[in-house]
């Protein structure tokens, strides 16, 4: 277990190192000398010595790696300071946003199960019939519709034209309905197909035929044998894509002005609010670490074979 956690932690560290290094490189390689642009502000003629002096002061004469090290050290201190925009401590703001983001993610998952479970099951049970065709068509379409566009359409129809649901902000469960539905619909197409094919596999198993022969009722066979046997592959994919779900929430949060960490960071990027951006990167790294570790550990719990082999992942 400790090995898994260490491995996951190492991944996060490698990722942070690489992504910050690449962005550091690109920022330094970007056209335009930062020193010149700082000095030119006053529109006075600058001497070569002045340029050299400032360059020295700002550490630009150090080797690139040293500069990068200093930059990293700033990040590693974890005190991200106050937001440039609101002047509040970044960590407090983010702490306020995490529950909203998680709430939205859970809501989306709930809607996904509500859509994918019946649609996938019906498609598998009535394979080749119209309901299967409809489900195939819907999931093809669902995979092609951008979630933000779906959100815009739902806002326009249910929010603005019909006025049934609030479309902006976070104010009780009511306001979470539209964003959750958008998110849930956007992710369900994958699971409909997955559940269908997994169900078809388990429907063809010997034990199901045996259960039928024993005269067990069809609903009972389906729920306590077929469905149960079909879930592991679905859960595997779910675990892998949990991270991208959190990524996808960002877009939804922005559209619905939902005050989660995704909306915060997008506002921060627009406003060049660096402390906030750094804080977001840190929080995201922690979230990804925690989620992936839980997923890994639960695989081991669900699949004893892995525990015996001592392998952490599928």
């Amino acid at each position, binding site marked *: 277990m400790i090995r898994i956690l260490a491995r996951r932690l190492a991944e996060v560290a490698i*990722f942070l190192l690489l992504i910050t290094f690449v962005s550091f490189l690109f920022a330094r390689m970007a056209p335009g000398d930062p020193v010149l642009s700082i000095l030119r502000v006053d529109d006075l003629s600058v001497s070569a010595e002045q340029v050299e002096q400032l360059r020295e002061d700002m550490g630009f004469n150090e080797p690139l790696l040293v500069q990068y090290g200093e930059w990293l050290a700033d990040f590693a201190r974890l005190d991200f300071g106050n937001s440039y925009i609101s002047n509040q401590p970044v960590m407090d703001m983010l702490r306020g946003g995490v529950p909203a983001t998680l709430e939205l993610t859970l809501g989306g998952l709930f809607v996904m199960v509500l859509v994918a479970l019946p649609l996938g099951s019906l498609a598998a049970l009535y394979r080749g019939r119209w309901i299967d065709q409809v489900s195939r068509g819907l999931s093809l379409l669902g995979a*092609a519709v951008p979630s933000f566009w779906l959100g815009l*359409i739902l806002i326009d129809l249910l929010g603005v034209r019909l006025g049934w649901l609030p479309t902006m902000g976070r104010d009780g469960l009511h306001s979470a309905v539209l964003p959750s539905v958008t998110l849930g619909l956007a992710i369900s197409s994958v699971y409909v197909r997955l559940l269908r094919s997994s169900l078809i596999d388990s429907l063809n198993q010997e034990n199901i035929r045996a259960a039928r022969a024993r005269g067990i009722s069809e609903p009972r066979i389906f729920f306590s044998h077929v469905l149960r046997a079909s879930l592991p592959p679905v859960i595997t994919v779910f675990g892998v894509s949990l991270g991208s779900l959190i990524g996808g929430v960002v*877009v939804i949060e922005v559209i619905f002005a939902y005050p989660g960490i995704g909306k915060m*960071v*997008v506002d921060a990027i627009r406003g060049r609010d660096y402390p906030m951006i750094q804080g977001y990167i840190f929080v995201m790294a922690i979230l990804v670490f925690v989620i992936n570790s839980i997923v890994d550990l639960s695989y081991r719990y669900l699949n004893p074979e892995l525990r015996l082999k001592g392998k952490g992942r599928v």
Partner: protein
Amino acid sequence: MKSGLTINKTCATKVFLSTFLILIASIAAYTFLILKHDPSFVDLNERLLPMSWQHPFGTDHLGRDMLTRILLGFQLTVGYGFLALLLAVAIGVPMGVIAGFKGGLIDRLLMRVADAFLAFPDTVVAIVLSGLLGAGIENLLLAIILVKWVNYARLARSTVVTERQKDYITMAKINGLSEWRIMLKHLFPHLIGHILVLASLDLGKIILLISSLSYIGLGAQPPAPEWGAMLNEARPYFQTVPALMIYPGLAIVTVVLFSNLLGDYLRDKFDVKKEVAE
């Protein structure tokens, strides 16, 4: 099990794919030969016009011709997506082939990096990079390349690792072929099918990512006629002129649907196992 359904499915897919290709050809012809309007020509007297012969899709809030902008958006959105994909493949495949063929330290290093990037969702990488470098289409493309090359490196590596055990590679080695020649002439051809399948499925995902992030202001910036950016610009007018919302969205849906169907079709054709797509 081949049932009537599967045949119908492939047939329908083929019809859709060919229709789409014809559509692209005519769009290309139209854009290059008879483009009537300047996509950024602002005419405030012609704001928010409904469809007409002059403006088949109407005009937007600045009086720009919607059809022209949608068509140029095709070049932009799909062009960017294609560019990012191409670079990701061009970086990822050689890395994967070399790592898989050579093994050892390079291999372990590459797999570590790959795992690290796979742990983070695409959108988050794109956002982090925009955050550090500033919002803009170039940085978004950089982020996409950074995320996607890993998939191709992994795919190439896993294929090479299985292939390299086989007798024909041993024979090639015994015959004194250079390592580069083996990689290029013997291993690479095995990859093409897998790569094409993954790439066509990825193209759709990349286009979705580009337009979503452009919509929230982190990708292409207005007035560029990128579909996501167009939706962003037109948002205050959706209620009065729904067409401004519908056309760019439909354009995205069509292109992504095409890319997904193409991927499915190629998967059947090359008989690539389903895991590749995951």
